[in-house]
């Protein structure tokens, strides 16, 4: 049985920061919440989606709101549990597992805290395989899991139940409620059966976060290769293997950032040490696409991760600054995130990007063909 424990907690948190792909909120508070629970309960069980039985009924719990508020009015596990109870009453059934909505950022942690308090296991999988900014941007939605009842609760357990025909509508109606609740609220949504879990989730992402964090730590201690290369080696041999590639090595030359419609939108320019190559990465809360010397290098839903060259720690879009030495890692999204059904919901068009989706490995192949 896979578990999250106090021992692998630092690895897990480091991994969720990398899977946050530049967004997802500061994992610091998530680490403290989980540390406090693990000191009481010792461990949290993680179940492989393939081992999920048909009588499983899971629900996702997550925070909605502004990361700038999360650091002050912290995510609230009790209020998330209240939302879960309301959802149970709505559907007249009890949940026996928790499934994370996101694999990256603070929402990768809250479900584990809730599971620890309720003594429930957590599904080793999630609905995003990384971090995305909105609730409809999930593989749960792509593969037909109903987001309703979409239960929003505040710290005082005041609640609103949204029944909407689409997840997009639930997101649109929920957002202003969240603002009224003080800029942060807990959401229980996407109640799903064992069959729906197997059909719709991005599998293995909880243990993936632990593995990524472990790889960073061990590579750093061994000191033979840099962290980015260590991660590429890891993905090559992971089960199943995933294509990944160092997209750029250079320094931050410029950062443009603006807040628009509640999103942090911007672009970071990187320059190689020789000055011969440049990369521009656009972000919309998370990193969305990267252009190297004017050619597409990676695009959402594939993962773009910016790492500090020396330490291998993830750098968020808010943490970008002139002069940082970074490496940019591209990681192929798993097949469930790249299907024809998935791309309109979590692909480039969902972010109003004109470029069509091209898989990371095809872009790499093009690149190699050009330079040959």
């Amino acid at each position: 049985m896979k578990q999250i424990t106090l021992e692998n907690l630092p690895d897990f948190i480091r991994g969720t920061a990398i899977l946050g792909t530049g967004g997802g909120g500061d994992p610091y508070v998530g680490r403290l919440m989980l540390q406090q629970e693990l000191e009481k309960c010792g461990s949290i069980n993680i179940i492989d989606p393939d081992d999920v039985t048909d009588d499983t009924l899971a629900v996702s719990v997550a925070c909605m709101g502004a990361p700038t508020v999360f650091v002050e009015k912290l995510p609230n596990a009790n209020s998330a549990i209240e939302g879960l109870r309301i959802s149970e009453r709505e559907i007249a059934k009890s949940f026996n597992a928790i499934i994370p909505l996101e694999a990256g950022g603070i929402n990768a942690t809250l479900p584990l805290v809730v599971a620890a308090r309720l003594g429930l296991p957590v599904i080793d999988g999630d609905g995003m395989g990384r971090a995305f900014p909105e609730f409809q941007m999930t593989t749960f939605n792509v593969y037909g899991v109903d987001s309703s009842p979409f239960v929003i609760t505040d710290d005082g357990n005041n609640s609103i139940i949204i029944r909407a025909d689409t997840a997009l509508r639930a997101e649109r109606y929920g957002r202003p409620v969240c603002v009224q609740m003080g800029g942060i609220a807990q959401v229980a949504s996407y109640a799903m059966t064992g069959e729906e879990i197997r059909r719709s989730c991005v599998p293995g992402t909880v243990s993936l976060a632990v593995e990524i964090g472990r790889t960073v730590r061990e590579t750093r201690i061994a000191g033979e290769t840099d962290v980015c290369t260590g991660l590429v080696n890891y993905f090559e041999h992971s089960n199943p293997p995933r294509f990944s590639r160092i997209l750029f090595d250079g320094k931050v030359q410029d950062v443009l950032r603006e807040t628009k419609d509640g999103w942090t939108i911007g672009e970071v320019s990187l320059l190689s040490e020789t000055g011969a190559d440049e990369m521009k990465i656009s972000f919309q809360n998370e990193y969305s696409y990267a252009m190297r010397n004017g050619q597409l290098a990676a695009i959402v839903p594939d993962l773009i991760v910016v790492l500090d060259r020396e330490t291998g720690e993830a750098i968020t879009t808010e943490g970008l600054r002139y002069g940082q030495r970074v490496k940019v890692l591209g990681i192929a999204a798993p097949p469930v995130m790249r299907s024809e059904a998935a791309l309109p919901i979590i692909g480039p068009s969902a972010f109003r990007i004109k470029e069509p989706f091209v898989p990371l490995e095809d872009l790499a192949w093009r690149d190699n063909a050009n330079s040959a």
Partner: protein
Amino acid sequence: MHIGVDVGGTNTDAVLLDGTDVLAFVKSPTTDDVGSGVVSAIKTILEQSGTDAARIESVMIGTTQFTNAFVEGKKLVPVAVFRAALPATESVRPMVEFPDHLTRQIGTQSYLVNGGYEFDGRIIAPLDEKAVAAGAKDMKAKGIKSAVLSGVFTPINSAMEDRMAEIILNEAPDTVLTASGEIGRIGLIERENAAIMNASLCDLSHIVVNAFRDALRELNIICPLFVSQNDGTLMTAEFAEKYPVLTFASGPTNSMRGAAFLSGESDAIVADIGGTTTDTGVLIGGFPRESAISVDIGSVRTNFRMPDVLAAGLGGGSHVRDDGNRIGPDSVALDLLTEAMVFGGQTLTTTDIAVAAGYADVGDSSLVKHLDKALVNRAVDRMHAMVEEATDRVKSTQGEVPVILVGGGSVLINRDIRGASQVIRPEKSGVANAIGAALAQVGGEVDKVFSYDKIGREEAMEEARQSAIERAVDAGASPDTTKIVSLEEMPLTYLPAGAVRIKVKAIGDLAPAGEAS
């Protein structure tokens, strides 16, 4: 005339300044009792310059005593935390991440009560005054005498922290209080941590500040006493006694400000090359740029203002390996005078390279004559490249700026630095810290979330500016010279356009004696 003193872990330095003239300076050992080291340092500079103690207008002291005490977990007192926040924040109790060696002394006592604010100033819940009173009774029964006041979004409204203070003092009048909203910024846990650090130092701050006072009394110096803060401004001795945490990291700040003064540059990069590391930071308008990221102190995270300093593994004692291709990060440090080859030792260090290359004159150069020229050249290249990389990394924009080199290890660098408009090596850089302390001004700052929809942008900005200036004047600045030095506006994501966080800082010259309120 002013006296600047820097009480470090190893040395106590003192300088005597008349306006901007350095009349005398001295380096002497730090003593266990702190006070006698300060006395002997000040005595030396007064004698050197033949100055009468009566002519001293003010004394400014920078100290690392409090940082060191917290990091080493020494001389700390038990602390109780009162957090006005429930039903919010129950998922993270205070001091979750504090290491055992700290909680053994500080404890983990906390009282979470109903209260706190929303980002827009609405209340989460009315303050549960009965719970605060009950907590105060319990705290008193447990013999805890230092308490932290904390709460959700208390930097935007201090009313609940103020009320908690009244209730606690009513139940336990001897309690020493630290209000988190007074010292930290947005970020509940980090702000609370900074307040806990402060509260844990309340006994030591009393002892150290009194030692400073006694030292001046012993020397017959009757003038205001100030202590330097980590942002390069001063606080009164009384204020320092209440907020010792504000001295954390004042060492690098004073060093950078002293370097600025000695070189006459106010916008520059300062590289302080010591025995083991090179600490590089940026001066903007004579003040160090502040760190945008959180800073861990003794493995506890805080978010209060700190100078943004980048440490790189290059110092005068750094090991040289791989045929000169690899420098540091380890160093012979304090053993340089026995371990380095030029001093007859067996370890190849950066100092040996600088001597072998012919531009440094330390130790016996004949002991490094045999070194391979190519190796020496590679190591010299690498050392310069490390300083170039460090200075470039801390820059906030492209373009050339002056680079000021200070510290004993600055002999390692003799070429131009790429990206530097000029390289400056000021004299007397050994006492830059004490000079920086003597030059400090007085400041005040505000970090609040405002709702533009409610009061409008102009009014919000004006309110923030005024309250920063008031804070500076309260801290001892003369009102005429106090002005706004920085103003940042940050719209909050995922919230309606009206919510904006404003950070303002005001700084002024020290008010002449008698004028300060």
